[in-house]
């Protein structure tokens, strides 16, 4: 059960101040030149309350470029320098509930077998304060993937807008409680029933369970070629995605020292599976597009008991050729 409080409109600012003073950095959606980015938030006015950031907040726990180790040459010998992730205590403030849920989909991959200390250190130091959606757009489909615009899953604190101004705060975890302790005055007792601004309406476009069953028999269906014909084979969808976890490991070095970096990668890029011999198991864009869909909607549920998608629609918004994932999945779930 979650603890429920009321936060006034001005209380949000006080809370951000208090978090900042406690030595945590506050990141959140911020409008910069007509775009929304996940960036440092200094005061409540900087928070973008409408729309979604273009790139997800996953960089907080899984940066686009991160150092896995360093090394230097000493004559013929090599000296390895194990690095620790620079995991600054962080509060992700004001992200959407879909983003908050996405951390679970990353977690299952980074921890299902070997434990990834880089991801774990960052995740342990991240607290998520999400704000429920009261608006959605044509790319959103959280309701089709087992969620909703006011889903508390994954949020340490979920804020829901009150008709009278301010927010209802549902504190779901110990990390959330730690934030409450930072600014006790901000979290006021709940006077009876909260009168909430209604959550956004997101009409379900398909049923993820049905989709999973349909995918089982659709691997060789021409639908993947048809859908991917306009796909350019870039990685925009994967790089803005809050759950895409595929990465590459790259060495960068000079004659004296080097480092091993982990960078985001995408199954949509041709090089992803290309062997040095020239053989490519997924040589065609249609195969790569199919892999993207199957990985998230068939292999994840089978293997990790969760979907590899939270229905945020960022991929569709970022796509230069309008590959609308919701429509494509609805099509795949039919017939």
């Amino acid at each position, binding site marked *: 059960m979650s603890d429920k409080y009321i936060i006034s409109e001005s209380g949000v600012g006080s809370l951000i101040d208090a978090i900042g003073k406690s030595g945590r950095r506050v990141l959140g959606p911020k409008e910069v030149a007509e775009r929304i980015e996940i960036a440092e938030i200094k005061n409540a006015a900087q928070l973008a309350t409408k729309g979604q950031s273009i790139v997800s907040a996953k960089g907080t726990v899984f*940066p*686009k*470029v*991160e*150092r896995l180790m360093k090394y230097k040459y000493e004559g013929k010998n090599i000296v390895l320098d194990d690095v620790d*992730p*620079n995991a600054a205590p962080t509060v992700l403030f004001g992200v959407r509930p879909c983003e908050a849920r996405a951390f679970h989909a990353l977690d299952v991959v980074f921890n299902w077998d070997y434990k990834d200390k880089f991801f774990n250190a960052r995740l342990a130091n991240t607290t998520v304060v999400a704000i429920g959606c009261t608006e959605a757009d044509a790319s959103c489909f959280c309701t089709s993937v087992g969620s909703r615009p006011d889903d508390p899953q994954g949020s340490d604190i979920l804020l829901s807008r009150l008709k009278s101004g301010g927010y209802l705060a549902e504190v779901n975890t110990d990390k959330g409680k730690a934030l409450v302790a930072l600014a006790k005055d901000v979290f006021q007792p709940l006077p009876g029933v909260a009168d909430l601004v209604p959550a956004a309406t997101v009409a379900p476009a398909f049923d993820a369970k049905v989709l999973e069953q349909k995918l089982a028999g659709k691997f060789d269906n021409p639908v993947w070629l048809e859908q991917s014909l306009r796909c350019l084979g870039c990685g925009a969808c994967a790089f803005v995605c809050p759950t895409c976890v595929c990465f590459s490991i790259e060495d960068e070095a*000079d004659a004296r020292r080097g*480092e091993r*970096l982990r960078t985001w990668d995408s199954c949509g890029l041709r090089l992803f599976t290309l062997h040095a011999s020239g053989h490519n198991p997924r040589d065609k864009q249609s195969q790569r597009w199919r892999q993207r869909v199957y990985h998230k909607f068939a292999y994840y549920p089978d293997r990790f008991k969760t979907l590899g998608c939270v229905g945020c629609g960022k991929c569709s918004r970022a796509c230069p050729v309008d590959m609308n994932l919701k429509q494509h999945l609805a099509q795949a779930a039919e017939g």
Partner: protein
Amino acid sequence: MAEPFEPKLTAFVCNWCTYAGADLTGTSRIKYQSNVRVIRLPCTGRIDFMMVLKAFSRGSDGVIISGCHPNDCHYTSGNYHARRRWMVFRDLLDFVGVDLNRVTFSWVSAAEGAKWAELVNETTNRVRELGPYKEVQQLAAVGIE
């Protein structure tokens, strides 16, 4: 007291003219500043613009690019092709904010030992005035968490 700043220059030169010219500088016992590291390539046509970028990102404070005078190319037209590329590249470098005072293009023939010395001295002095090129060198550490 801190050591006075000594710039590091990288020179990309062609084998046939400028390298021979620089050689002549030495054999003629013309003294010039020792801040330059010469990288010999077959022809100015082989001097990929990436090399210039790499030189800066790997710690050069200035770059010299030099080859045969027009009409003197060992391979007939390598320097003409290079010249076109430099024209576009130089403008583009300027557009992305690389300081053109740190890049010197020149023709130095095998007979121009004195010109080579002059060129290196001039560029070295100019870059010494400008100071270390931290703006670009430091980029190498930006963006890795």
